[in-house]
Each structure stands twice: as C-alpha cells, then as structure tokens.
C-alpha cells in the first residue's frame, strides 16, 4: 500500500471480488424460485399437418401449431433470457423415446412484451424427422420446454408437465 499503483490495484481488485460475491448472492437468493413460479402454458397443440413424406429414406412431417404461454413467472433479477422450445416426442421400434425440437424462441428479460407468447398457426422451424421410416401412425406429444439462462450461476431447465401435453396421431399413409 506504499505507492499509488499498489493502492489502485488493491482497490480495483477488492472491488471486483465484492462484485463477484454480490452476483453469487443474487444467484443464491433465487434458489427454489421455479417451484413456486412456473410459467403458465394455456395452449400448445397441433393446428394442421402440412405433409408426411418419405424424404430420402427417412420420414419427415411438416406441421403447424398454436401456442399460448405466459413465461413471465420464470423471470427474476438473475435471469438474462429464456430459450423456449417445442419438443415432439413419440415411441418407435428403434428408439423407446424420440425427442425432436421443432421450434424455438429466445425470450429476453429486456423485452417484457415478448414474455407472453401468443402464436397461432406457426409453421415449424425444424421438420419432424425420424431416424428411420417409422413416423406413420405414431402418437406424437407436443411439449413446451425452456432453459433458464441466468446472469450468474448455472443454467437449468424447465418443462411443461408431460401429463398436460397435447398429442395427435400421424396418418397411416404418406400425404
């Protein structure tokens, strides 16, 4: 502490250490937030099936869906953004559980107007593609999932309860 530079170094780095502690405290202050503040998913269901085709040996379905969800409860002072995505899941003889992301969206905390997601007849971003040719006649569940991206701390996931997820049956013939 005997020269200007040593004191400047001391002040700046002690300050940064304190800022780190404050950030960690902010992360700790929101542990368990999700158990009492779950997003409300009012509607997530198939609107229309556009096509179900064999695409180079594998089955591919294109569809559109309706989504109405209020993501506001998931946000707090340590959340930077949510990565929200729609997952289609079904069983096939090849895999017991197939999970395919068909649509996603980033909801940022600086845009509160985006937290209420209300979309009708949205076309998928990514096609529902099977590993083989087993899509025909399958029961597919649509489920909303999201990743919490915090300012400080660990990323953690959230999902709509599977019991509340809607489902539909794909046609038995290509169309």
């Amino acid at each position: 502490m005997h020269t200007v530079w040593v004191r400047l170094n001391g002040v700046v780095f002690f300050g940064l250490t304190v800022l780190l502690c404050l950030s960690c405290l902010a992360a700790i202050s929101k542990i368990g937030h999700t158990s009492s503040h779950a997003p409300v998913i009012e509607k997530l269901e198939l609107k229309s099936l556009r096509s179900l085709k064999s695409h180079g040996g594998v089955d591919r379905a294109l569809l559109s869906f309706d989504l109405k969800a209020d993501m506001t409860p998931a946000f707090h002072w340590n959340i930077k953004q949510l990565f929200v995505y729609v997952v289609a899941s079904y069983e096939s003889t090849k895999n017991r559980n197939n999970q395919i992301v068909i649509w996603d969206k980033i909801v940022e905390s600086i845009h509160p107007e985006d937290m209420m997601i209300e979309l009708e007849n949205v076309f998928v971003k990514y096609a529902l593609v099977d590993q083989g040719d087993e899509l025909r006649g399958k029961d597919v569940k649509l489920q909303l999932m999201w990743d919490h991206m915090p300012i400080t701390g660990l990323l953690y996931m959230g999902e709509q309860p599977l019991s509340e997820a809607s489902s539909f049956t794909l046609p038995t013939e290509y169309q």
Partner: protein
Amino acid sequence: MDYKGQQLAELLFYWIIIAFGAVGWVIGYMHQDFFIVFKFWLVGVSISVVLCVPDWPFYNRNPIEWLDSVPNRQVESKESSK
C-alpha cells in the same frame, strides 16, 4: 504515506466498497434489478479510488521517526576492530 496511513487507506476502501455493495444489493433485491446493485458498487469503487489512491495529507500524520544517522561509521568500525 506513512504506515498508519496505509492501514487507514486499506480499511477505508474495504468498508466503503462493502457498505455500498451491501446497501445496493438490498435495494436491488427490492426492485429485482441487478443493474441497481452494479451502479451502487460503481459509486463505492469510484469514491474509494478518489479517497484511497492519492497520497492525501491526512495519511501522513504519523511520520516514521528514524534514528539519527551514525557519524563516521566506517571510521568507527575500523577502529573497534583493531
């Protein structure tokens, strides 16, 4: 800056940054906005830099009292070794 001054400077920035950070954290928590915490922290660090980094006169109130220098030390030591 004397030894007492160095101790004072260190204690000052220590408690100023912690105090601003703690108050800012509580207010930020109430408003659920971490940017408030950051602003309080920045004010605390800025005050500390101004207050603790330059060698202000009040850090020099306890100057070190050196012993008087020994006159003709080399001559003396030569004489005593004889």
